[in-house]
């Protein structure tokens, strides 16, 4: 049992570390896909950047609309990587993660703090001009991603498995599954509407980049082989019980951390909400996808996750 403020700080530290990694990864994948399809289908490349902006909706509302694709790509790239005013930029998330870590420094270890701090510092010194160069951009973001991985490794290897650790992991799992659901919700309408046979290679690169954006391509291949059937990809990302970024796995993880956090006697509101959702995910499958229910189901998932977060905040953080 820990201070509510400390639990709050650790939960958000977990969320922001995860969010930073998600944003860094999706930036890298989007940049790569956009470069790949640029000459083939400019509209598609443009769509990729728009989707990314919908998944991380932190761009200023008064932003000048980019006239060219290169302009859109450059503005999105720099904005989501290092703009301190963009609430979803990698730099912003790392800063918030570090601020939270500082405020609960006594609940962490030196290894965790130093890794996070150095990852932030390294990205902080990058400027717009440097990042406009694709090679620099890739190496900077890859290095940030690696820094986040070592922070997560330090958490894994050095933190006491106490209530604080549970809240940190809860935040991480919550952010991960929430972002997966948002990404699927954003990408699906365009993906399922596309008539496959028109340009097959392009069609497949989209699905491949969706999997890569959720670092799940290799895991998918292990489960279904190299063949990318949309229905299999959806089945995998929604219902696979083992891949760490599927919706089912994520909701179950959130439920398990909440189970361990709540004391044995009482069933808290948050556990009730997420427990029902986990059960739905365990018993749903192909039918739902075949019947074209994926979108409404994703909306349902997002609503229930939102309610879970509110219940956690109200009960444990008193906010």
């Amino acid at each position, binding site marked *: *049992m*820990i*201070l509510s*403020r400390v639990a709050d700080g650790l939960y958000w530290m977990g969320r922001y570390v995860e969010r930073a990694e998600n944003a860094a990864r999706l930036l890298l994948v989007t940049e790569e896909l956009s470069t790949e399809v640029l000459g083939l289908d400019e509209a598609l490349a443009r769509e990729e950047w728009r989707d990314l902006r919908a998944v991380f909706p932190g761009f200023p509302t008064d932003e000048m609309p980019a006239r060219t694709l290169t302009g859109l790509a450059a503005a999105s790239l720099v904005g989501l990587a290092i703009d301190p005013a963009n609430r979803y930029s990698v730099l912003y998330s790392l800063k918030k993660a570090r601020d939270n870590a500082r*405020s609960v420094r*006594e609940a962490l270890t030196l290894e965790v703090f130093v890794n996070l701090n150095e990852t932030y510092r390294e990205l902080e010194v990058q400027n717009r001009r440097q990042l406009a160069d694709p090679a620099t951009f890739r190496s900077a973001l890859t290095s940030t991603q690696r820094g986040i991985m070592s922070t997560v490794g330090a958490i894994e290897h050095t933190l006491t498995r106490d209530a604080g650790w549970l809240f940190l992991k809860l935040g991480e799992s919550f952010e991960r599954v929430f972002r997966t659901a948002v990404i699927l919700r954003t990408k699906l309408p365009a993906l399922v509407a596309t008539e496959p046979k028109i340009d097959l290679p392009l069609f497949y690169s989209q699905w491949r980049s969706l999997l890569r954006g959720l670092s799940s391509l290799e895991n998918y291949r292990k489960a279904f082989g190299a063949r990318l059937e949309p229905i299999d990809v959806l089945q995998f990302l929604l219902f696979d019980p083992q891949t760490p970024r599927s919706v089912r796995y994520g909701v179950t993880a959130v439920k398990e951390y909440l189970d361990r956090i709540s*004391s044995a006697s009482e069933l808290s509101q948050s556990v009730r909400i997420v427990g029902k959702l986990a059960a739905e995910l365990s018993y749903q499958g192909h039918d739902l996808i075949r019947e074209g229910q994926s979108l409404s189901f994703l909306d349902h998932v997002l609503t229930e996750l939102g309610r879970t977060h509110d219940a956690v905040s109200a009960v444990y*953080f008193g906010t």
Partner: protein
Amino acid sequence: MPLRKIFTHVVGTDIVRDDRGDYLVLEDNCRVPSGVSYVLENRNLLSRVFPEFLGAYPVRPIKDYPTLLLETLRFVAPRRGDNPVVVILSPGIHNSAYFEHSFLAREMGVPLVEGRDLLVEGNHLFMRRTHGKRQVDVIYRRIDDDFLDPLAFRRDSLLGVPGLLNVYREGNVALANAPGAGVADDKSVYAYMPQLIKYYLGEDALLPQVPTYLGFKKDDFTYIAEHLDRLVVKTTGDAGGYGMLMGPFAAVKERETYLAAMKKNPGNYIAQPLVELSTHPTHIGGRFEPRRVDLRPFILYGDRIRVLPGGLTRVALRDGSYVVNSSQGGGSKDTWVLASREG
């Protein structure tokens, strides 16, 4: 009266050495003296960078300071016997000493709390936790009296805990240091310290202090006004080197402005002759140069009085400067107390 009649659980007295080689007490810090984390970190650094130095001398260890501090704090707990709950109360991450608050919390293994983590119920103090509240017995507070309790002191304080003073008066929580302990380190009271020691303890002070002229005394004020170019003037309530005038180095204009301010509230000022602080070789820009230093040993008062065998040596890094405060660009040095060698 505070629990176990202790007002000053943690004291950091500032000591200087003058041009005759005598040690003098320059200032008593009885409120929330800071800097002990530097003492411990300086030693850590030195032992990492120059392990051979430490090996060559019988340097007394200081690493157990957090343990001693925790013992001191537990000693004053109102509920004795069963594991008393000790916390550190910090203003939060924006405070310049936050590192130290967090450092000590980690070293002692106690919760670091902010005002908003605490609440008063039924004249007891609790901290808000994820699974209900828990009673708090001892607060090592690192915030000033003024901000402790908006019901008792500053009403606009968001750092404190409403109702805390009532809990304290009931004897249901111990505060270290006790509210009001600042009276003892007031710069005007300082002038009377030798007499106070004589009166209460029947002893002479072991260390002399710097002659002090008090603004509220008419004769003293006249002396100060006439010798401003030879004196260091300080305001009684400030710390950290703020609000002071270094007479010998100040421009005429600066002295005149300062004197005008003094005349409005003479009691708020004291003056002392400039003490020629001792210097210490200091590595600056690739070579050793003399820089002025003072020493702040840390003293804990619990079941007994313990003096940490080390201390914070503060150094004025600017050439010719007399101001060692870290808030004014001062640095610090590891400080050794040697054990007597056997035989």
